[in-house]
């Protein structure tokens, strides 16, 4: 029987009245009733109870008092001997409920009949009430009543051992099943969610793709988009012309459309057909980025350079290592590439030809460059042929 009150815990009890067994309840601004530490000083303070007397104290106190073996509960008037092992954190704030639930756990383990075990619902309900009455005696009853109830409990347990065992197993299975069902449902929901997200993404991508495809086909103006436009146009004129002329007309309009589409930055022109538009010239192909060298490339064509840093010939060591040459910014590889360039420069330039071309007036720099490039290319081929 827990004592009705104690000298400790006045602070902790304030504000909460527990009707159960006069047990102190935790309040939000907790203070340990044993060492008077308040939560303000120790944020992580944790309260523990022992199911023998449900007196709560902070974990520090528990460690201090019970680490060296069994000891007496520090609450005044409580003479229970407690062990460290029995202490645990309470689930409920109201310790009388904590105690009640512990008792219920014991009772539920014994009285675990289910509705199917009874003939009628009324019988079952009477049974439930009987169990509840017994539990009440155990929780709230006087000492004597409690012992009586305890005895009843034990007697019932002994009497119905087989039944209890069977129901326990069935109950556990049912619980398992239930838990698995919940888990499965949760999984399924998650799965569905993922799928939905995927679906939405796929749809979005599909939309983007189709738009791009449309734009592309309009840009190229040939087969895809232009053709579609042609078809649509053709649908509109069905029945008016025979198929051949329809085809011809479609092709013509298709060309027009393609031109218009390209001209209008690929906006949705492909599907419109406007008759009597002036035939427009196909605009020049779009310009790439400006190339100041007019397409000349500087990769040497008559020789190849070893990859940087791999050329290692004793004859060249002088150029590589001689301190006299080496200053800031000097690079051996650069030196080699310059040397090679100088050596080959001018090969494949035919002065006579150059003279002829130079005679033509009004050539732009770009064109000269292009021509030069062309000659270079010719020269390449010649050399290739020769080798």
């Amino acid at each position, binding site marked *: 029987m827990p004592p009705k009150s104690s000298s400790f815990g006045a602070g902790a009890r304030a504000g909460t*009245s527990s*009707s159960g067994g006069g047990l102190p309840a935790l309040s939000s601004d907790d203070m340990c009733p044993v060492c008077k530490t308040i939560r303000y000083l120790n944020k992580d303070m944790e309260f523990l109870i022992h199911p023998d007397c449900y007196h709560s104290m902070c974990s520090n106190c528990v460690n201090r008092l019970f680490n060296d073996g069994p000891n007496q509960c520090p609450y005044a008037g409580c003479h229970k001997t407690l062990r460290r092992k029995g202490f645990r954190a309470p*689930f*409920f*704030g*109201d310790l009388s*409920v904590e105690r*009640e*639930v512990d008792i*219920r*756990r014991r009772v*539920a383990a014994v009285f675990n009949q289910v509705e199917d075990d009874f003939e009628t*619902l*009324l019988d*079952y*309900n*009477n*049974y*439930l*009430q*009987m*169990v*509840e*009455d017994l539990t*009440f005696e155990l929780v709230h009853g006087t000492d004597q009543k409690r012992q009586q109830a305890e005895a009843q409990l034990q007697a019932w347990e002994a009497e119905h051992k087989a039944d209890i065992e069977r129901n326990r197993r069935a109950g556990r299975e049912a*619980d398992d099943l*239930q*838990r698995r*069902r*919940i888990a499965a*449902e949760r999984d399924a*929901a998650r799965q*569905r*969610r993922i799928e*939905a997200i995927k679906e*939405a993404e796929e749809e979005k991508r599909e939309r983007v793709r189709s738009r791009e495809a449309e734009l592309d086909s309009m840009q190229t103006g040939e087969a895809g988009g232009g*053709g579609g436009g*042609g*078809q649509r146009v*053709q*649908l509109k004129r*069905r*029945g008016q012309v025979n*198929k051949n002329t*329809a*085809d011809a007309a*479609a092709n013509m309009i298709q060309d027009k459309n393609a031109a218009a589409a390209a001209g209008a930055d690929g906006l949705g022109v492909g599907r419109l057909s406007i008759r009597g538009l002036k035939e427009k010239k196909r605009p020049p192909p779009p310009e790439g980025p400006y190339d100041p060298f007019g397409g000349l490339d500087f990769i040497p064509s008559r020789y190849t350079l070893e990859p940087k840093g791999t050329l290692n010939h004793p004859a060249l060591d002088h150029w590589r290592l001689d301190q006299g040459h080496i200053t800031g910014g000097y690079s051996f590889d650069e030196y080699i590439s310059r040397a090679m360039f100088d050596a080959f420069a001018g090969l494949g330039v035919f002065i006579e030809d150059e003279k002829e071309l130079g005679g033509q007036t009004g050539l732009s720099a770009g064109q000269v460059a292009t021509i030069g490039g062309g000659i270079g290319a010719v020269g390449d081929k010649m050399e290739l042929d020769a080798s």
Partner: protein
Amino acid sequence: MEFNIDELPVLFPYPRIYPEQYAYMCDLKKTLDAGGHCVLEMPSGTGKTVTLLSLIVAYQQYYPEHRKLIYCSRTMSEIEKALAELKALMKFRTERLGYEEEFRGLGLTSRKNLCLHPSVKREKSGAVVDARCRSLTAGFVKEKKERGEDVDVCIYHDNLDNLEPHNLIPNGVWTLDGLLRYGEQHKQCPYFTARRMMQFCNVIIYSYHYLLDPKIAERVSKDLSKDCIVVFDEAHNIDNVCIESLSTDITEDSLRRATRGAQNLEAKINQMRDSDQKKLQDEYEKLVEGLRGAGEGRQEDAFMANPALPDDLLKEAVPGNIRRAEHFVAFLKRFIEYLKTRMKVRQVISETPPSFLSHLKEYTFIEKKPLRFCSERLTSLVRTLELTNIEDYQPLQQVATFATLVATYEKGFLLILEPYESDTAEVPNPVLHFTCLDAAIAIKPVFDRFSSVVITSGTISPLEMYPKMLGFTTVVQESYSMTLARRSFLPMIVTRGSDQAAISTSFQVRNEPSVVRNYGNLLTEFARITPDGMVVFFPSYLYMESIISMWQGMGILDEVWKYKLILVETPDAQETSLALETYRTACCKGRGAVFLCVARGKVSEGIDFDHHYGRTVLCIGVPFQYTESRILKARLEFLRETYRIRENDFLSFDAMRHAAQCLGRVLRGKDDYGIMVLADRRFQKKRNQLPNWINQALLDADVGISTDMAVSSARRFFKQMGQPFRTKDQEGVSIWTLEHLKAYQEKKAEETIRELQAQQNQRQLMDAQANGNANGGAGRGDSDYEMDDDDEAELMALDHH
């Protein structure tokens, strides 16, 4: 005006009728004939209520079943309006018919509005009025009085008992005022008069809650017969009403008070055990037999309301372990303690009812079954203990309701525990939301019980969404367009500012100065050209505040101030109504005003800006819901899983129905005119989600325009509207006289005849061919294929290409 629809004679209390009103009546009649549900969208300001009432009353009076009409509306003012219309209609009928019909129409509202008791009626809060009234009128109070004890009673209530129970009030239509006056004259309580007379009425007009909130519906509406015609007017938000009626929020404070309630109960039980053991014993014995036996159930004076319970549950006896009063109280306390413990968790938890129950059972040994009986058991106990100060037990009742619901429904509900009010909050303030996700649960009893349910509103697009969400099927589903003799409203979708930059209130750009400035320009421009009143809607309070302060900094408000007074809606109802009053005055005086309000606030739902009170409505941004809310997220997920409604579809639908509500505010009749501006880039794609009548009036040229184009368009519109316009111009087009109507009906009839004839010819032809086939053997019924020739040509052309 008097005409027939098929064989049904309809008396319409006006000399003229709108074509859409006539169409509405025809569809309504079809629904009633077929005995099914329907969804009807009728443009705002086209006299929906009177149309509805005159058809249904005609229907009632003509057919021998005399089906009762239950007309549900949302607000007090709407209820009063409907009652006034009904009264006028009945007066007209009497004049026309030359005699008064056997007819009774009543409105019902809360005790707070109908109480006559000199001290009770002075209470401010509705809950207190209810509670005090109950303590004066409960059954045991009367018993006590009869026993000669000295108890307070309400004389207005007791006087009713001296009257014939089916004739508490004479025939006729009783507006709320009329009811109050009659009650005062005859010293009888108007509230209970209306409640008790409901069974003997032809028309009942009351608020949604009396049907949808299962906690009230059970008591108020249980005696209504199956063939009643139920109408939900202004029903565009009906799904939210359904959901709210079954959701509860539990806080630490309410749990604390629930504990106190349980302790009081315990004390009372102990008291009674000492003094009046017999009563407890009686209750106990009744409970052994079955729940319904305990106190003959749910009378009008039932103390506490219970949520919807399945019928089988009601017939069952209370589980043995909560039969005894003290057992039950201990049970409640254990449950409350458990909830308190759960509330201590400092992370967000969302949980389905089954998983909650299994955790609960593991830690408290509370089974599902007694939990389901919680709320009924509590009601019974409270009655036995003869408690009068019910409001003290309200939190306990809330917990019990929650217990019952969580144990009854496995699907369609979710528990969400939010330990902090917001993401940035430091101090925990946990709330346990028990939220209903499925609007169909609350409204299901209504659809199950009544054969004809009409769901109607000015903006209820897209129509198919509602049957989907509420789980019913319709026989008629119709959206009417507005017939107009002149273009009296101008909807526009503005997507670009005057600098051609796109405007939008989406999160990425909403605070960019250029966007804010563009919105500001839009406001200034329209403030300049709009005569009198102008209403502006923002998607949320938060955004409204931030944009207003930015406008202040940019000097935009000063500019607007030159043309109009600026008034702002606040969450405070009183402030807002004051602002509204000022706004009206300013409009009447000619100073003109702009009212800045929120698309989901009070103004957007209930307040009309007719005529000069609103010439322009400017909807800034798409009024999306706040999607970070966990409750909304859960609901979206539920909708997707259960009804295959995708998140974005629902959000967009919800935003557009609010936008449409806002737009509808300015147009309240055919002689009214106004401009509706939707200012957001995203509206362009959502155009089809607008109600039919708005969408039809929206020209392609007015979609996706910039501010300056909108302004010039608006200028032209106002100039046109300024021209004289007579009713005569509308006749035959947007208004029909009886002749027009007759002509139309004749034309319709002719068409039907022609159609029938055509069908008949066809049938004959087919018959002949069938005969031919039978004779010839190989022939085919070519007529079926004839129309496909063109298609075929098309297909071939495609192939060829």
